[in-house]
């Protein structure tokens, strides 16, 4: 077991980034255009990185499997983006955002990274406003804020329920400007299939042109992955259909350590599962908990319609258990409490749903105000469920939403493969074991706009990179392996669909590695996953040929989930404690809260791929100097 080094600078946490920016090596403007950077992914992190690196003058090649860069799933983020502007004069500061994020992450994030994130948050808002992101404003013309879970201040900037869309369009447009300026070359419908490592450094990727099916080799001086999270390992999640683990998993197999894969976020307010046909789950923004009250009937077996259940026969369990944060407790707590209520049989009609009720807010503020705040979310709810949330309370239940785990990166966002940098949800860095609401957008943009443009220059300045072209044998070797796998997939011609296997894997990990985990269940999953994987490779039916073929695309992604799922369960089994989204039922307080084991597990797990064998564990010790370790309390 090796110790991983964060490579963070010395000194007080609040001065580290400024000091580091000065200490880092620079690249002469004239030399930048000679350096080629591959960026994979065009979500908030990938698009903002591409735009900013292009502005600096680097030769950027950006890849997305989408038909347009604007389709990336950041577009679907609803509620908002945090920033320590303290516009509300309610006591916010960089220090408080830093504190809230470390605490919200249940003390499993790296302090230095989180502080830098909080510092950058204010610049992100400035930049996005200058780009024309139409954030919500007050009548006086200044920016409006709202509250999100895990904080007692209002620091969330938003654009109705479409904040992610507006921020992504800002980054996408900035990138398209660089495309026009020819500093960024954009490759659409191009999926990364493998990472190419030459002389121990990331030097390129293998890409599948999804239109023609051809495999392409691309060489570069550095590779940046911004390919999102792995929530779709659960099949049903709020992620978009195409979200996958392939790029990060392939990089892992080439030597990048995977950190904390068991930290998955189950979002408390999603539209409940309806039937077997369901292809995905839909989030109802956390912002709704500003004005919505969560409750279940007091009595098990009370199946009356909500309107017939009198006030004193309802249990507003979050308000009851956590009076100071109420409905705005962090996501992991809100989810676990919903599960606790439904496990007790108090779910709506005894099933897997609880109420999110706006009746009080509508009475207090009027329907118009609620409509102005959440109109598009209410409409979406009605379209999907066929019921009107202005009249009867929403029914909600937790669903997989975000993954805090990801490729391990140091303070420079560089993975254990030199030259491979990882941004946004794809890395593990800032959210610990639980991400606070409105912090994903902040992190993606902080990484892309403000961190990588600095740290990648440092990489170039400190490494003597020889010329590597796609003629290097490593490219052919990687390409041949990819081709072989594709040939294998299209020739199985079995009797089951790709979705069949994906669904089976998803149900298994949801059951054994979802909101609550235990040793026996995880061991069972670890036994079962290889069996599903074997059956997949024996009996999946990928119709069509190797050209434009959406079934083949999906099959490759599911094949990787079938490998990754095992690592996720292995990590969950190894981590003998509960923290944030990782809840081991063996480790809980008397009140049923997550019980950390700081003596034995105050570290980041960085798993090292080990061909054909169990992954090897490496750790990065976490120290908490500025936010002292404590049992989280939101009471």
């Amino acid at each position, binding site marked *: 077991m090796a110790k991983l080094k964060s490579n963070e600078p010395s000194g007080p946490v609040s001065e580290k980034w400024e000091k580091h920016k000065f200490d880092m090596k620079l690249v002469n403007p004239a030399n930048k255009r000679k350096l080629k950077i591959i960026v994979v992914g065009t979500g908030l992190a990938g698009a903002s990185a591409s735009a900013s690196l292009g502005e600096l003058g680097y030769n950027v090649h950006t890849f997305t499997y989408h038909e*347009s860069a604007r389709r990336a799933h950041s577009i679907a983020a609803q509620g908002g983006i945090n920033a320590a502007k303290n516009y509300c004069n309610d006591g916010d500061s960089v220090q408080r955002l830093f504190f809230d994020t470390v605490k919200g992450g249940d003390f499993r994030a790296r302090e230095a990274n989180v502080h830098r994130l909080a510092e950058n948050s204010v610049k992100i808002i400035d*930049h996005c406003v200058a780009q024309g992101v139409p954030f919500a404003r007050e009548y006086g013309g200044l920016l409006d804020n709202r509250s999100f879970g895990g904080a007692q201040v209002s620091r969330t900037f938003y654009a109705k329920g479409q904040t992610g869309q507006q921020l992504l369009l800002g980054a996408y447009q900035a990138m398209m400007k660089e495309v026009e300026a020819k500093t960024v070359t954009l490759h659409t419908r191009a999926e990364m299939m493998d990472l190419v490592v030459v002389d121990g450094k990331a030097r390129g990727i293998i890409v599948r042109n999804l239109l023609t099916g051809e495999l392409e080799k691309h060489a570069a001086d550095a590779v940046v992955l911004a390919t999102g999270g792995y929530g779709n390992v659960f099949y049903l999640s709020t992620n978009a259909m195409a979200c996958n683990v392939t790029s990060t998993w392939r990089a892992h197999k080439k030597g990048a350590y995977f950190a904390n894969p068991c930290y998955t976020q189950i979002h408390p307010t999603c539209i409940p599962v309806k039937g077997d046909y369901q292809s995905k789950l839909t989030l109802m923004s956390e912002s709704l908990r500003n004005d919505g009250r969560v409750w279940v009937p007091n009595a098990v077996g009370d199946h009356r319609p909500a309107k017939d259940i009198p006030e004193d026969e309802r249990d507003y369990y979050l308000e009851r258990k956590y009076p100071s944060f109420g409905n705005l407790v962090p996501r992991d707590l809100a989810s676990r409490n919903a599960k606790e209520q439904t496990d007790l049989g108090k779910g709506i009609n005894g099933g897997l749903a609880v109420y999110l009720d706006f009746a009080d807010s509508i009475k207090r503020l009027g329907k118009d105000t609620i409509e102005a705040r959440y109109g598009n979310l209410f409409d979406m709810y009605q379209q*999907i469920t066929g019921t009107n949330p202005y009249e009867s309370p929403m029914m909600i239940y937790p669903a997989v939403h975000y993954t805090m785990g990801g490729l391990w990166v140091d303070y420079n966002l560089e993975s254990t493969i030199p030259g491979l940098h990882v941004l946004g949800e794809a890395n593990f860095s800032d959210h610990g074991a639980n991400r606070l609401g409105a912090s994903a957008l902040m992190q993606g943009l902080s990484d892309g706009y403000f961190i990588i443009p600095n740290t990648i220059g440092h990489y170039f300045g400190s490494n003597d990179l020889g010329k590597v072209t796609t003629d290097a044998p490593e490219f052919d070797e990687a390409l041949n392996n990819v081709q072989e796998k594709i040939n294998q997939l299209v020739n199985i011609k079995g009797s089951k669909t790709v979705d069949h296997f994906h669904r089976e894997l998803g149900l298994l990990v949801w059951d054994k590695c979802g909101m609550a985990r235990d040793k026996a269940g995880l061991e069972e999953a670890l036994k079962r996953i290889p069996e599903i994987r074997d059956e997949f490779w024996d009996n999946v039916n990928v119709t069509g040929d190797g050209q434009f073929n959406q079934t083949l695309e999906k099959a490759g992604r599911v094949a990787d989930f079938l490998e990754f799922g095992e690592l996720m369960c292995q990590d969950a089994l190894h981590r003998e404690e509960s923290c944030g989204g990782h809840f081991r039922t063996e480790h809980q307080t008397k009140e049923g809260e997550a019980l950390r084991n700081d003596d034995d597990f105050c570290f980041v797990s960085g798993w090292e791929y080990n061909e054909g064998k169990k992954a090897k564990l490496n750790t990065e010790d976490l120290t908490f100097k500025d936010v002292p370790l404590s049992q989280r309390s939101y009471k």
Partner: protein
Amino acid sequence: MAEDKTITLTLKVWRQKNAEDKGHFEIYKAKDINENMSFLEMLDVINDTLTLNNQTPIAFDHDCREGICGSCGAMVNGVAHGPVSGVTLCQLHMRSFNDGDTVVIEPFRAKSLPVIQDLVIDRTAFDRIIAKGGYISVKTGSAPEANDTPIEKKKADASFDAAACIGCSACVAACPNASASLFVSAKVSHLVLLPQGHAEKKRVVQMVDQMDKEGFGGCSNAYQCQAACPKEIKVENIARMNREYIKEKSIR
């Protein structure tokens, strides 16, 4: 909760192998479709059956299935995104159909949006239009403090409404001239309504010229785009784009 209702439909689906293929309609029976399914989930069911019968599934673009990414879209009985106004295809649910209905499903059609396969089309023309000026030029790091510039709420809201465009191209498919005016004008409006976007006067000319170059038609006030737009973007944006275009052209 009441039992879910199921319906059976006859689907006439456009199948086209590739850009060169002429294409044709195939008829499929969609049996026992749960009315709570989304339209795309209904297509998933058909595709599962096709796969199990060793036939090639229907290709269609889709991703978020929440009506925001803009990937999905098809003509359903001749209407872009189907019979319910203000929603994308992924948010259309089967309760909007009746048992026994015949449903005709075709790709969005326009010269500038060629078919790639079945319902999948090439919309890269939209990206090329954005690249010609659909942005405010601000280098990372150079922005002033966000609250230095108050923006009249009415204007900020109107800007947001235009910015809500998801780039799905239903407006083009619905237009008798296959014009991209609603798409282009939504971006022009979003940016020009904000003080930050004022300085770049050439934007509108460059974007409109690129639209013409891509082969999209002009606007002749059919208003079909507004009716088809899943985000209910208004044609007044086209009027604003035309005003801005004339202003910029005549000042020179």
